[in-house]
């Protein structure tokens, strides 16, 4: 059953399919560039519903193999919202003629992903409406993720892109008046310092706009290629720095999938607890500032009380508050500290107290309701077309949660509800998070029970050449010291191959696409950030609303620049 889609493709398009494989359970087809459009059209429309129509494009990224004649590659990750099947398409092209047809006509979300792949690898997507740089500076020359671009080669880049670059123009209306093009941000309180909006305004109404991102493109993916597998962990931490534990554990799990490492049960329970603490903290960081943007400052202080309760656990567990880097490949370096359970249970009390206060303040508040209900509505169809996941997609009623649909760790053994909205407006987007925090508390409680059942078991897998030995052995046993030295200096010996692993991040599906060539460093480490597709919807959703409402729509999106731009 699992290879059924690949077999069907081979039957239908033998002339385009070069190779198929299912390494680590990921169905993959390597195809010719001219076959992309027929294959995707077939997958989207004509394939039998039993196999699942691939109606959602999850991610597009590039890759570079300098030694091959067709050195560049575009990688597509598709999924079906009916059967939850997934498929990866790889399209190799030569560097001399790097042309691939654009998928913007098939999937709306392809727009920004293709721009990013063009920016990073120089692949030309034919038929793309606005194929310009997205992450790097507009004057940047070269394509930085190609292997022959030196990591530290800096360029003289000294001015911001002019408004004309965005192609947003003022128009004359029927009554003879003209619309106005205004630049908002990036250093503006409502854009939170990370987004620039070139907006066409008709009075106070947003008619059209173009968003510029990339103000925090600090080249995490290039850095990853220069570090050993284990040392990428701190970079993974700083993707979504608001909920760092989710990022590190997703990266660790991706490497474990690629390497075929099975982690102990206790690690899985502990990871679930850390992830849910991270989720609670992340939702606090969205809700607090979002309400500040509406003029409600009090809630900000309440939500930070909750965050401090989470910080306390992280601080005592790993000695760091925000970017904790608590995971290792294969598990955790240390077991929990004494009093861990009490600190986690304490979170429950703090959340119930302060979240209750906030709910009393906002849910019947006329100002809050007037500003959020029916503002920035999004439908479930739009959410799927834009490839959304996470709370924003769930607010539209599209019930997709990686923890339910593709359970990992022990999420299939705990009891919790997926929170969904109905209208997909700003109110739903905010309230989905409020209720999700309560579900997190349920998972935390069950996670602690699971953790108690595994008392005394190890928290770290033990695989020679791949996982670090226990710290106390490193200083007392010769073999452990050699093993530690080899892993730190030469890197983990992860077997060659590719894998994509995704978890439910606080903003939606957070994925890592990793390619290993058998050396100690990743050949490619691509992050699928949930924010990226969310940010892309912004002008479509905010269009037609008042500028003041567009601000609130942005606040409800939870855009974290670290993962958006990497």
């Amino acid at each position: 059953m699992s290879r059924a889609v690949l077999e069907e493709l081979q039957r239908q398009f033998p002339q385009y399919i070069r190779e198929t494989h299912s390494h680590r359970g990921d169905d993959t087809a390597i195809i010719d560039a001219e076959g992309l459009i027929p294959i995707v059209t077939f997958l989207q429309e004509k394939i039998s519903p039993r196999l699942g129509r691939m109606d959602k494009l999850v991610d597009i990224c590039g890759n570079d193999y300098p030694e091959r004649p067709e050195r560049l590659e575009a990688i597509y990750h598709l999924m079906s919202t009916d059967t939850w099947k997934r498929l990866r398409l790889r399209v190799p092209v030569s560097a001399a003629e790097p042309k691939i047809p654009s998928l913007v006509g098939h999937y709306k979300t392809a727009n920004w992903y293709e721009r990013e792949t063009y920016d990073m690898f120089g692949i030309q997507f034919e038929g793309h409406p606005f194929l310009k740089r997205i992450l790097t500076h507009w004057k940047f020359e070269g394509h930085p993720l190609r292997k022959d671009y030196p990591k530290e080669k800096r360029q003289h880049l000294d001015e911001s892109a002019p408004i004309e670059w965005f192609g947003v123009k003022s128009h004359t209306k029927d009554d003879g008046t003209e619309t106005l093009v205004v630049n908002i941000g990036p250093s503006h309180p409502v854009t939170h310092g990370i987004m620039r909006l070139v907006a066409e305004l008709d009075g106070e109404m947003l008619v059209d706009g173009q968003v510029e991102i990339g103000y925090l493109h600090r080249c995490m993916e290039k850095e990853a290629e220069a570090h050993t597998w284990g040392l990428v962990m701190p970079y993974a931490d700083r993707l979504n720095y608001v909920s760092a534990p989710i990022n590190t554990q997703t990266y660790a799990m991706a490497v474990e999938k690629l390497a075929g490492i099975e982690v102990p049960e206790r690690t899985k329970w502990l990871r679930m607890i850390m992830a849910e603490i991270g989720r609670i903290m992340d939702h606090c960081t969205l809700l607090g500032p979002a309400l500040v943007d509406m003029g409600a400052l009090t809630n900000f202080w309440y939500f930070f009380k909750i965050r401090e309760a989470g910080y306390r656990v992280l601080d005592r567990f790993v000695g760091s508050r925000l970017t904790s880097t608590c995971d290792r490949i294969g598990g955790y370096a240390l077991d929990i500290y004494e009093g861990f359970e009490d600190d986690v249970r304490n979170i429950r009390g703090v959340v119930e107290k302060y979240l209750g206060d906030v709910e009393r303040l906002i849910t019947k508040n006329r100002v809050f309701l007037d500003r959020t209900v029916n503002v920035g509505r999004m439908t479930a169809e739009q959410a799927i077309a834009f490839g959304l996941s996470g709370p924003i997609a769930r607010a539209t009623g599209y019930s997709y949660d990686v923890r339910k649909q593709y359970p990992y760790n022990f999420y299939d053994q705990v009891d919790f509800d997926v929170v969904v909205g109905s209208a997909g407006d700003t109110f739903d987007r905010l309230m989905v998070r409020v209720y999700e925090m309560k579900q997190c508390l349920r998972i935390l409680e069950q996670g602690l029970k699971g953790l108690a059942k595994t008392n005394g078991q190890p928290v770290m897998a033990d695989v020679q050449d791949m996982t670090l030995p226990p710290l106390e052995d490193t200083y007392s046993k010769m073999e452990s010291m050699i093993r530690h030295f080899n892993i730190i200096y030469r890197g983990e010996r992860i077997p060659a191959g590719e894998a994509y692993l995704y978890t439910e991040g606080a903003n939606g599906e957070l994925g890592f696409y990793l390619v290993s060539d058998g050396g100690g460093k990743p050949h490619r480490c691509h992050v699928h950030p949930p924010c990226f597709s969310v940010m892309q919807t912004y002008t479509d959703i905010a269009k037609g609303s008042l500028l003041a409402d567009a601000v609130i729509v942005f606040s409800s999106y939870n855009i974290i620049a670290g993962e958006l731009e990497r």
Partner: protein
Amino acid sequence: MDTLWSQNKETNFLATSLEQLVSWGRKYSMWPYPFGTACCAIEFMAVTAGDYDLARFGAELVRFSPRQADVLLVLGTITCKQAPILKRIYDQMPEPKWVIAVGVCASSGGFYQNYHTLQGIDGIIPVDVYVPGCPPRPEAILNAVIELQNKVQKEGFRRDRGEAGGTLLGIPAAESKVSLPVVVAKQEAERKRREREGTSAAKGSSEDSEVSA
């Protein structure tokens, strides 16, 4: 205030007391502009929140307009795309102004040694206090505020920073709309005016204090 007066009874009593008075006023009424780009901004939010409470140092009134702020807190990594904006924000702040580089990214680029990350903001704008850490703990940020207060108290109010100081990625910053000679001339005039006013004010208060003494 009593301490200010009593400290300077011995020497050069009047001129230094005005200096100290102004500095004292400045250091307890800082209006920060949080130029938050990354992780450090989240820790700064924790600093302003109840548990750490920046208000204890008189610096809780966060402004998002550079025209209304006098301390620029650079919180997070500055990339090549962000650098021209940071420079412009700094230029738009009125004197007197101070800069705190929070975290290693703002101070030196941190562990992002690559093609798109600025290796420390001091290549563009002058920095008064550097805070180590990735991100620094809230205590470290509070410590930086205290350090800056000490610095402000010491340096007096007639400091001249030079408006066009700093370069942008090795090229002299041409962002400022006002050309250099105009700025210098303006500052000179301002300095003279302040000196005149300072002397007359000093004279006035000297008589008062002699009477009171």
